[in-house]
């Protein structure tokens, strides 16, 4: 599903990731942990195609992301969902409009789009707020809508960068449970998190990064 071969990344000459090699299989739940600046977000961005590695190769579904042309990146991104800490919702749009955006980009019909939006919102327990503006939602609700938007296209990989970073422990438990449920349905989940509670709750493979180095890989496939 995802393979990294000796991946190294620098930002303005500073090392962000150093010689990372790993393999993630379909349906795995991978938790990226480590202190701030360890390289968790960089690793996710590389897989997402938002950054290019300076050295090494990245294969996602046998496609070399390192060699992806600028015009191919959007199509690569459509195969995955991305959830961020700061939600990234359009505040003046309704919940359903926000969730429908990836489907509009793909050019789905209105009927199909409505069906998928409802399905995704049901999965995150937000189907009762279809017409509510995103700006009036609570933090937990906003993150649920973000997750719905990330899964509405039925992605094979779901990436999440500190998705519970802005949430209280109660909401963190709820959001972690959602990720667990999505992973149980067969989606590969890769999440960067500091949160011990999330790590314990998701009970996945733990990759620990420190200063750009992969220092431990617990539960890795051999």
């Amino acid at each position, binding site marked *: 599903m995802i393979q990294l071969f000796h991946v190294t990344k620098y930002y303005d000459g500073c090392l962000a990731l150093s010689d990372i090699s790993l393999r993630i299989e379909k349906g795995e739940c991978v938790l990226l942990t480590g202190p701030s600046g360890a390289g968790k977000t960089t690793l996710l961005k590389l897989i997402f*195609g*938002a*950054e*290019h590695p300076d050295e090494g190769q990245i294969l996602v579904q046998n496609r070399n992301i390192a060699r992806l042309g*600028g*015009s191919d*990146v*959007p*199509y*690569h*991104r*459509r195969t995955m969902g*991305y959830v*961020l800490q700061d939600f*990234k*919702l*359009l505040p003046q749009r309704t919940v359903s409009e926000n969730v429908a*955006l*990836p489907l*509009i*980009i*793909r*050019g*789905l*019909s*209105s009927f199909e*789009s409505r069906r998928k939006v409802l399905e995704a919102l049901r999965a995150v327990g937000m189907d009762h707020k279809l017409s509510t503006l995103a700006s009036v939602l609570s933090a937990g609700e906003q993150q649920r809508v973000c997750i719905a*938007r990330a899964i509405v296209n039925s992605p094979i990989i779901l990436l999440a960068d500190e998705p519970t970073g802005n949430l209280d422990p109660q909401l963190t438990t709820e959001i972690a449970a959602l990720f667990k449920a999505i992973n149980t349905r067969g989606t590969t989940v890769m999440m960067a998190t500091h949160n011990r509670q999330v790590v314990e709750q998701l009970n996945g493979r733990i990759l620990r990064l420190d200063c750009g180095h992969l220092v431990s890989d617990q539960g890795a496939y051999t």
Partner: protein
Amino acid sequence: MKRLWYFIREAYTSLRTHQTSTLIGILTTAFTLTSFGIFLLLYHNVHNLLGQVQHTIQIIVYPKNDIESDKLRDLQQGLKADPAVDSLTFISKQDALTEFKEQFPEEVYLLEGLGESPFPASLILTMAAKTPTTDMIGNLVKRLQHHPDIDRVRYNRDWIERLTLIIAYMEFGALVVGSILALASVTIIAITVQLAFHTRQQEIEILRLIGATSLFISIPYLIEGAILGAAGGGMALGFLRGGFELFTHKTQGLSVFGGFSSALEFFPLPLSLILIAGGILLGCLGTLTTIYGSLRFRL
């Protein structure tokens, strides 16, 4: 269909959200196109008037004195068939004599004792309204001068050349002024769209996050630019029409214009549509300038 609706709605939302910059963009485009339109209107009318004046340009061809009637007929037919020639009048030696007598009755005594008419027969050619250029008339004259049945050719070369030069200057002026104004308009629209672009950075970032292509992100802005341009073009057309009506109304009957104002005409429909299309083109160019810089090299 859903995508199209999305693009139109996005463009509309952006225009509504940034009302002030939208208004500035429309007014600037309108001002630019009005300035250009005034020049174009002037050029259009001068070109029309010159066409009419050129219609009165005549070339006088004197066939050889001893030309046979068959050859004279062939010569007339050949000249009538020339695309640069609008009409042809044959003045026989006798007609020329009659004309002289009519015009100078007191000088008739000069011709006494000369027998037949001393005046040569001639062919008077009038130029087609839109065709004459120095080259065309020059070529025609050259051909006629080398014709074996023609004695000589007379025409006012300076006058024709001056007219052609005026048209050429106006065309060049229209190109220069038009280019400068178009550049100004593109810049203003680019700034307007750039403003919309900056205020919607978060939205663009989200669209990138969920796999939108640069084209998908750009289309609402292109529509926005096209609407700005079309509105500016329409407004300019309105200004020009109003100004034109006012000008012709105020100058009607004024001796200083010598009836010139009644001969003026506004842009025909195709030219009016071209002006609006020009506005749309400027709007799209302005947007593309912004998009090219903002989206092309970003992942």
